């Protein structure tokens, strides 16, 4: 890890997490709306995220993928990922581009 040129932002973290996909849907977890919250403090990153379905067989792989990807981001000293189920994920949480990809209406219905 190298020292960052500027302070790490949630935008930087989200950008990095676009490299991690939900394998079943085949789309990145940020635009799927699986990443609920990102906290940053002194290089420590706290990610609150969910899965498309509870008990998802890919859950551990996705969590490990998030940890690995963020560990490579400049300025990151530690990563903590918490998987939450409330609020439950819904296609409404997808970004407009993800909705367009899956041909889901803008209101998510």
């Amino acid at each position: 890890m190298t020292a960052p040129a500027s302070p790490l932002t949630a935008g930087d973290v989200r950008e990095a997490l676009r490299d991690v996909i939900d394998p079943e849907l085949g789309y990145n977890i940020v635009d799927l709306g699986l990443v609920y919250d990102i906290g940053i403090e002194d290089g420590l990153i706290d990610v609150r995220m969910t899965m498309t379905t509870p008990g998802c067989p890919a859950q551990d792989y996705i969590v490990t993928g998030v940890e690995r990807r963020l560990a490579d981001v400049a300025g990151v000293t530690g990563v903590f990922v918490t998987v939450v189920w409330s609020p439950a994920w819904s296609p409404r949480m997808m970004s407009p581009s993800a909705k367009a990809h899956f041909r889901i209406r803008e209101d998510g219905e």
Partner: protein
Amino acid sequence: MNASSDRLSRWTPVMFACALINLCLGLLLAVSGLAWPAASAGAPATLAMVHLLAIGWLTLMMFGALFQFAPVITGRRLRSQALALVTLIGVQAGLALMVGGFGALGRAAWADRLLPAGGTVVTAALLVGSATLLVPLIARRPVPLSARFVMVGLGFLLLTVVLGVTLALALTIPATVPLLAPLLAGGLSSHMLAGLGGWFTLTAIGVSYELLPMFMLAPHERGVVGIAILWSGGAGFLAAYAAGLASAVAAAGWIAAVGQAGELAILFAVALYLGDVVRLYRGRRRRQIELHNRAAIGAFVALGLAVLLAAGAAAAGRLAELAPSLLVLLLLGWLSGLGLTQLYKIVAFLAWLSRYGGRLGRGPVPRVQDLVNERGAAVLFVLYFAAVALAAGAAAFGLADAVRAALALALVAVLLLAREYARAWRATYAQRAAAAGPRSLVPSPLVRQGDR
């Protein structure tokens, strides 16, 4: 074993492979002329074929899927992977004894022991498998609808195998005949009803209520309709099962009435389920659905046709005559069709997890969809369901040679589909795409495309 691989049911792919081999062997018995339609429904080779399909293919495939998806349904992991292996070995070994036992029926006293011995081994193995599944299913509170269907299905599996072993004893052990002989007349229909209906159909409904919404992004909640299907179907199959058994020892009017009420409840449940499936497909948020969900429509159509045929044949008093056609629609159209279509997705998903799951976050990985070639496989599903439709139609008119020809086509389709599953498991298509150029791996422009 690390935390990630704990989520994978290690023996599920092996179960699927064994199940597919058993399906091919069963179809081969029919196509070869050794079993029905060339032989009678009660011929030993026909009984061997039916059990290869019911235990070797459908039950093994169902357990393989449940070992992987019970944790998905309940959010709890299985206690032991080793018990899944015990289930697999027990079912496969017991089935081999049973098939040998059917082949040896009436030839030698020692050979006659093979059938009940095999049935007992299968029963013990399925009890181990059921207990392994029931622990996480029961522990979850509240129990999800899918889990309730699976639990009721496992209950019917127990009723099926216990009655099956009893029938095997009646067939092969002379000392038991005075006591069990009446069962041979009335018990067979209960055995088939509990197996095809209570075990396979209710469990398949439960699994479909988990998989269809998950892969189509449709609402999971089935509301009062789901509960009505469970109660009506469960009570209906139980009533028909009990009436079938009771009619073997007594001929009372009320027993027949209970049986008819059970059959009506079953028809109501299946009709309600098919209506709910239509609602589920229409309510999906993912407009463009994948091949396994498109092809599964063939299985739902087969179930619908089977219900119409059963109701029509019963009303016309031709149920016995049309039973073979009905069985083709249920065994090969509905249950096998649903199984083959869902395997297409499940195998690719398991392959992705075992091959690429550990690489997530380290660099580009393919998607699950990149492990399959939907365009090629779509033709095979059309071929399979067309062959089943032809076989059911030919069976209705008693055209044995046409049934065999149609089942040969179905066998070809299954073999070619098995090749597609193997390609998905080995990631053949993804590796070909990767060899063609780095652009074919994610993060691709498609996958990384977002709202910047």
